[in-house]
């Protein structure tokens, strides 16, 4: 069973995991995440371009902010700033990664109280 914050991308190219600086994640607080990107066989990916999307599919709305990867921390780690969720319920966060001429992405599901 995979940890809820670590998943293989849709086509199996990468494994993406996240750690939230706000733990547990509470609503209405702007905070940052650290993303870790590695290849399927566990090698850190250091030159990734990461785009972020998300929202509440059940409500048909997106994220209330525009989170962005602002820093490459090295060793496959990236700082994602500007994350906020403004209501309880089922959220998704989608990360698309492009590195070495390939791209793949994964969607995380979060249930917030």
């Amino acid at each position: 069973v995979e940890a809820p914050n670590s998943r293989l991308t849709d086509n199996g190219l990468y494994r993406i995991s996240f750690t939230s600086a706000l733990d547990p994640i509470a609503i209405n607080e702007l905070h940052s995440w650290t993303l870790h990107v590695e290849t399927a066989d566990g090698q850190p990916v250091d030159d990734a371009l990461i785009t972020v999307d998300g929202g509440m599919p059940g409500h048909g709305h997106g994220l209330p902010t525009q989170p962005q990867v602002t820093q490459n921390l090295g060793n496959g780690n990236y700082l994602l700033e500007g994350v906020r969720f403004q209501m309880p319920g089922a959220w998704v966060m989608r990360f698309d990664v492009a590195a070495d001429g390939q791209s793949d992405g994964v969607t995380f599901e979060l249930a917030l109280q």
Partner: protein
Amino acid sequence: MTRGRWIVLALLVVAAGLAVAAFWPRAPQWTAEERAAIAGLWIGNLPPLPADPSNRVADDPAAAALGHRLFFDTRFSANGEVACATCHLPEKDFQDGLALGEGVGVANRRTMPLAGTAYSPWLFWDGRADSQWAQALGPLENPVEHGGNRTYFAHLISELYREEYEAVFGPLPDLSHLPRLAGPVDDPAVQAAWEAMTPADQEAVNRVFANMGKAIAAYERHLNPGPARFDAYAQALIGGDARAMREALTLDEVAGLRLFIGEANCIQCHNGPLLTNNDFHNTGVPAVADLPEDTGRAAGAQLVLADPFNCVGPYSDADASQCAELRFMLAEGEQLVRQYKPPSLRNVGDRDPFMHAGQFITLGEVLIHYNVAPAAPAGESELEPLGLSQEEMMQIIAFLRALSGPIHAETKWLQAPE
């Protein structure tokens, strides 16, 4: 009394007890999830006042005292009759009870209450200001609110409040060579006078103007919500005190609370101890026929980015790194059209009419709107029809009325300065 009669009497007592138990309203039961939701609304979970790094005098008592005087001073207006307190009346939860604010003219929006605004990253219905101090500057130059201009205000500060101002902000610039009326406002003559000023003079006046906002904000930080009957209930629930719960809310109010956090989905936007997420939502509120087109947050997001008094501007005391709200703000997109900020629901029962232009007169109209979920006049409403019964709507209204409580502030802040 014979033994037989004792038995009959005992049986009668037991029967009466059972009858009472069957018809006595049962104490409401809450699931763990509901308890967490209720605790999330409790005022006891309101965090300490957040710092405002963009305002270095935010917690300076001398700045608050100056701001208090400015807030109530009608001389800072085109006709000498309008102060902040004209629309933000302390005895009315710092709002005016009018559909549209009335300063030197009539505004396009409803006056918002002030308590707890220090917690909000965005001010105004459309979030076109990103701090209390930047907000305070808007009405001063709005032609239908105070109707003034920044050079006029700078002159007034130097004439009326020089000592207090300089004690907080340092020496005033020399204003003696500047026109009486000048500012980037609608009046063509006043605007032309502003454009004729040197950039250095404009900058000096802007700084005095920004400092007025910072003093007013230092005052407004003292205005925060106090506990309501709902909070007594939430506290009793958390502490497991069933009797205190019964004393705090009626069964109808409790039923309304259950709907508020459940079936009626109110808590999606009206969450946290202020009962607002301070974000922006399109709830399909009707447009007002006689008012100009209003795109809500879609315009507000662009205005706050362009505002020289925002967190990253030259008059802010913050580093850009402390302006994360602005840096990661959602600035564009269809979803912003006709979004407005949900106001805090604290004291909402005393604050008719409702919505950003006072579209609804009663809470009944508000509940009917959410229950029906009509299409938005522009953009997409986030609402879904709720299918609540009339009784359920009345229960929610009863709950909303249990959210009233006095503003938590020293008495001196709740009246004009001596």
